[in-house]
């Protein structure tokens, strides 16, 4: 493991809980995909979900902004509180929720529009900008936060799909932060990227921590160790272990966690 990376990880114990999930169950038709998961996610922290393929970590992530609603057969039970409000309450509009809880997907998926329009779309539909000048500001700020401003500032009218894979993913991150979310969910954001682009995105995630609560699903344990302060290990739909990243990687409590991080299962 990356011991040098671990040494620098510090966890601020006073951070408040942003998301509290209690006894969450997810069913896909007859399949019980998430079994009784309870987890509290801290604000201004990077939390990593790790685990073998099919363990339910992405499914759980998609519960946090109700993206599972788009799947007809999916059914969610239990309670997920965002700032003490149950996001599965009948009165909650998932659209409003998703504006607060942004998401970055596994495959970079910019809209087939200009770079500017990609970023401006969210603020536009949420009415965050009163005029063109404000919108320009938001776009620039978001692209800067996405660490891609310098590369694209001269070609904001170029199509977003024309960028390289790493640039596209950073554009998607810029797009996600443009709507001023409070939580940013990332579903294996680097799995389609080369090591250099991955490094850039990871650096970006670390910077985003100052403003957002970031939850990242990753297949790469090194990545989890590098970017996260808290790590949750999922196995077969169960949350096996959840704790500080340093502790999970150096001194896991559960034997399954140890088997996984040492490469014996998964």
């Amino acid at each position, binding site marked *: 493991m990356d011991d040098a990376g671990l040494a620098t990880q510090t966890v601020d114990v006073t951070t408040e809980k942003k998301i509290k999930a209690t006894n969450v169950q997810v069913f896909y038709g007859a399949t019980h995909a998430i079994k009784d998961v309870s987890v509290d996610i801290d604000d201004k922290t990077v939390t990593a979900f790790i685990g073998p393929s099919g363990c339910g970590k992405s499914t759980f992530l998609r519960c946090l902004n109700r993206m599972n609603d788009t799947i007809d057969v999916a059914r969610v039970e239990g309670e997920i509180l965002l700032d003490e409000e149950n996001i599965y309450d009948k009165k909650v509009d998932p659209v409003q929720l998703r504006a607060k809880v942004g998401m970055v997907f596994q495959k970079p*998926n910019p809209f087939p529009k200009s770079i500017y329009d990609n970023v401006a779309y969210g603020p536009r539909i949420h009415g965050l900008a009163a005029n063109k000048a404000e919108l320009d500001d938001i776009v620039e700020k978001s692209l800067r936060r996405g660490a891609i401003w310098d590369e694209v500032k001269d070609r904001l009218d170029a199509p977003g799909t024309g960028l390289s894979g790493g640039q596209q993913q950073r554009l998607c991150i810029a797009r996600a932060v443009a709507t001023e979310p409070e939580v940013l969910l990332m579903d294996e954001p680097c799995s389609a990227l080369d090591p250099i682009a991955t490094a850039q995105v990871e650096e970006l995630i670390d910077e985003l921590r100052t403003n957002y609560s970031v939850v990242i699903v990753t297949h790469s344990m090194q990545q989890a160790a590098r970017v996260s302060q808290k790590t949750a290990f999922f196995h077969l739909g169960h949350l096996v272990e959840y704790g500080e990243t340093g502790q999970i990687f150096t001194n896991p409590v559960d034997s399954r966690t140890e088997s996984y991080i040492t490469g014996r299962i998964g």
Partner: protein
Amino acid sequence: MADVSIDTASAPRPKRTSLTEEDARTRKRNAAEKRFQYYGIAAIATGLFFLVTLVWAILSNGLPAFQQAIVEVEYTLTQEDYDKAESALLKTGVYTDHFVAFLHQEMNDRGVELDFDKAAVERLLGKVGGDIRAFYRENENLLGQPVTFELAAASRVDRYLKGTFERDDLQEGNRFFMPGDFDLIDAMADAGLVTQAFNWNFITGVDTGVDNPGGAGIGASVLGSFFMMIVVLLLALPIGVAASIYLEEFAPKNRFTDFIEVNISNLAAVPSIVFGILGLAVFIQFAHLPQSAPLVGGLVLTLMTLPTIIISTRASLKAVPPSIRDAALGVGASKMQAVFHHVLPLAMPGILTGTIIGLAQALGETAPLLLIGMVGFVARYPDTFLEGFVEPNSAMPAQIYNWAARSDAVFTEKAWGGIIILLLFLVTMNIIAIILRRRFERRW
């Protein structure tokens, strides 16, 4: 792997073969591959052969319909003759007599001697007297000056000159054509009075009766088809697209929507004559919409086109990658915003292509039109744009069917010509579909 050992002694080594020599299996495989390629080439060649034959048949039979024999006469009518004719009882008769006399003189001057009467001239050139009178009543200032008259020859003259109508073909007792008329045509041709011109009348004209088959044009039925296409486009596109978006993006997936889906696919395969009889029963007999009207034709064709549009629209909506929907939902767009801002624009080229192909299909449809009475004899244009929807009219394919069913060979030629026009419309629509697809196609 260390515990796995291979018994090298007992395993027989395959016989050494040269790579430059084909073994039996390879030879067989290659032969099969070659054979398959020949089958493919043969299939394509057969298809091409039929296509070429078809195009050749259509063009060779239909192109003559676009040509028209013209008798060109430089004719002078003096003021004196004009006054005399206008004061006569049978005015056009006097004009005709004067013209026939003039034609006699003209041909004699050109060294062609032939005796012919007024009736023969009228058989070959139509009611000449009326044409001339109408011209001079409009243009009295041209009296006394030489004026070149281009008189459209009767269709049989036309066909005789083209060689598709021989002296032997003339049947006994044909009151539209006498054996002596052939001599008159030959004489006029010898005198250099006959020329060929593009037959604009075929494109702009209306249907005619058996007494003037050469004058029949497809114009009115082109207009009938046009009005039907407007109805189809205005109804089928919005209804079809709305239905597909709902079914594809919003409708819950259950037995009921499955049932609807299956039925839409089945509707696409229903024979068009069934839609015709449905239109007759519902639109004409029940709703009392006007018979033979392009409005009703358009409604029936809308029913026929809807499944095509729905199926192609759903296919193009499905082809939009789900990641685009996720992306839109992920930044907090509502379902409808995701569909209308992102999915629909990406599906647009497919939708437009499907719509145009559906329209092209509807344009060529004949059977349902027969049942709602759009095959009548339509000899005039609608007076106003709106009347075009409700006045009895025909449509291109129905007009072609109508002409093909008539006994006179001239109408058969017109039918082939009509097919060329219909095909031109279809090719144009398909080209528009291709251009739209190329223009709006975006990669993601």
